[in-house]
């Protein structure tokens, strides 16, 4: 049984102009010890999905799901109290902006130890020992002194490491990391990703890693789910996705980043023309069809989730067969 199973998860938000369908019926699962990457354009519902899993959605948001099971526990049925226990002890989250997730008024030691003391009932001394061990593991020197420092005394990269250590304190089964490296520069990003991957394999933790950087995904993910306009439009093991992207959006994404050695410098890049549709109100048909280079009249109907080889699925009418009358792909600057 997978650690996390999500079936037909929907998140609706009332907004001024009607209802915003931020997440529109997504399915995925996460195995124990696996790294699943959620990729997609800004606003496609990545953060809403993670907040839904953590039970941290905005108050006005409405969540429905056919199935939302974590290790056999039905998350939709849980009381807020049990939910909160679960959140601290078995699922934890790493946020994009560590400064907003760390409380500026408490020392790092306090914040690191609090969860462990509350959820596991260990003594303060034991908690401190584990905190020091983990800070050292995430590459922070002089860990003992750091425990008495406040978040603002650390650089962005160090804070993000502290967040990782904090997420690991209770040895959770699942960590959700929402764009943990987007705000950092490349050298620090590489260090943090390496660390996360190592620790994850060492402790056997499952990770849902949210990003929009396909380079990052390629290097760390076991499996990838590509989201577009509130839906998972393709999911596959990483090598399969990069080798045979089945959905036109995935193909577009992969071809619009310049690849050194493949795209000649200074040449035109393939771009995906157009913009993401509004998710307010009812969305009918394939949400990508106004930007899709191979859209057909059929695409006015909502495409089913096609099963391709093995664990590879794509939500496109033409994921497994050629388009009837292929149009040349347009490149619009």
């Amino acid at each position, binding site marked *: 049984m997978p650690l996390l199973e999500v079936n037909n998860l929907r998140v609706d938000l009332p907004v001024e102009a009607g209802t915003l369908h931020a997440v529109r019926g997504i399915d995925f699962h996460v195995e124990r010890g696996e790294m699943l990457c959620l990729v997609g*354009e800004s606003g496609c519902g990545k953060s809403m999905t993670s907040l839904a899993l953590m039970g941290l959605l905005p108050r006005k948001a409405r969540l429905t799901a056919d199935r939302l099971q974590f290790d056999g526990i039905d998350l939709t049925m849980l009381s807020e109290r049990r939910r909160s226990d679960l959140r601290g002890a078995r699922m934890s989250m790493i946020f994009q902006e560590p400064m907003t997730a760390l409380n500026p008024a408490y020392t790092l030691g306090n914040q690191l130890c609090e969860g462990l003391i509350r959820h596991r009932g260990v003594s303060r001394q034991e908690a401190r020992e584990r905190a020091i061990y983990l800070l050292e593991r995430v590459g922070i020197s002089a860990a003992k002194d750091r425990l008495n420092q406040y978040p603002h005394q650390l650089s962005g990269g160090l804070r993000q*490491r502290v967040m990782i250590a904090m997420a690991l304190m209770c040895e959770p089964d699942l960590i959700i990391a929402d764009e943990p490296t987007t705000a950092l520069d*490349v050298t*620090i990003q590489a260090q943090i990703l390496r660390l996360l991957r190592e620790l994850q394999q060492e402790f056997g933790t499952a990770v849902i890693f949210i990003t*929009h950087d396909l*380079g990052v995904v390629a290097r760390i993910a076991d499996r990838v789910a590509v989201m577009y306009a509130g839906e998972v439009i393709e999911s596959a093991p990483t090598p399969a996705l990069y080798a045979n992207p089945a959905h036109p959006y995935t193909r577009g994404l992969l071809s619009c980043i*310049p690849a*050194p050695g493949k795209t000649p410098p200074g040449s035109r890049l393939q*771009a995906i023309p157009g913009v993401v549709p509004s998710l307010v109100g009812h969305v009918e048909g394939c949400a990508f069809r106004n930007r899709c280079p191979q859209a057909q009249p059929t695409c006015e109907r909502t495409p089913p989730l096609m099963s391709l080889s093995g664990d590879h699925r794509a939500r496109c009418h033409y994921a497994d067969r050629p388009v009837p009358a292929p149009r040349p792909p347009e490149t619009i600057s």
Partner: protein
Amino acid sequence: MNAQPITEVAESRPLPSDSASVSRAVTPALELCGLSKTFTLGGGLFKRGRTLGAVSNVSLRIPRGQVMGLVGESGCGKSTLAKMLLGLTTPSDGDVLVDGRPVRGADQKALARHIQPIFQDPYSSLNPRKRIAQIVGLPLRVHGIGTPREQAAHVAETLDVVGLPRRAAEQFPGQLSGGQRQRVAIARALVMRPDIVICDEPTSALDVSVQAQILNLLLDLKAEFGLTYLFISHDLAVVEHLVDRVAVMYLGRIVEEGTREQIFGSPRHPYTRALLDSALTPEPGLGVPDIGLGDATPDPSDPPAGCAFHPRCPKAQATCRQQRPRLEDIRGDNARVACHLA
């Protein structure tokens, strides 16, 4: 001709046009000579603060019609450098030469005809209370170029050039998507037909699918108007795709500079190497490389002695800790590097 102050030349230019004078071929479009900027931190009405050298002694020549990439870690002074070139910050020391003429003392309007910016954040670079036509037409109005009719025509033409529909002219920035806003910002920069465009992370706030559109546009415009770019970015794949030469900055100084092939093909400074190693290309299975840098990110107000990179450098030696390496063209191949071991 060369000794003429920049003001008068600019004044004598009529409507923006792509006039190219003969002598221009030799002098670089933009030259920075020993440019430095020091900030004072924490000073008050009566007390003096600490100083922070955000940019130190940067010299750089950007030939006409070329793209110079500028990379380096966050906070190393790239934006400060850009602001000095744009006249937004006065340099503490050093000179900027546009077309071989010093900018210092020239007035902002004259400078604006030669250099224009494209900023990072398309959401804050357009005044939310103004219509697109007003935003793009502002340069023409400020400089009193043409009649209102001519200005409107020129704005419409520029919107065409950047691929925006003409009806966008009547809209407000809030009604446009991020990519469209960035096109507006590009139109505003181009409406004066400048020679040099300073792009400070022009695509880092955009999704990759939109980034490609904007990069294509920048390349087209360069070909069409013979523009010279200074292109600042964190994304090495984008830099490699776009630029002719690259300068790598670390803690306010340029540590390596050369052609694209030199920098990306055979980097010589350990920091450049670390930077290139940490770029994650979309190739599954390679894993995340171990770049072997310590996490001792330096404090810019108290930079390490000797080579500023030595606390993190895997190859550092005794000399590195004591003596600052000079940025030199060691091999005579027109590439400069500041490392004792290069």
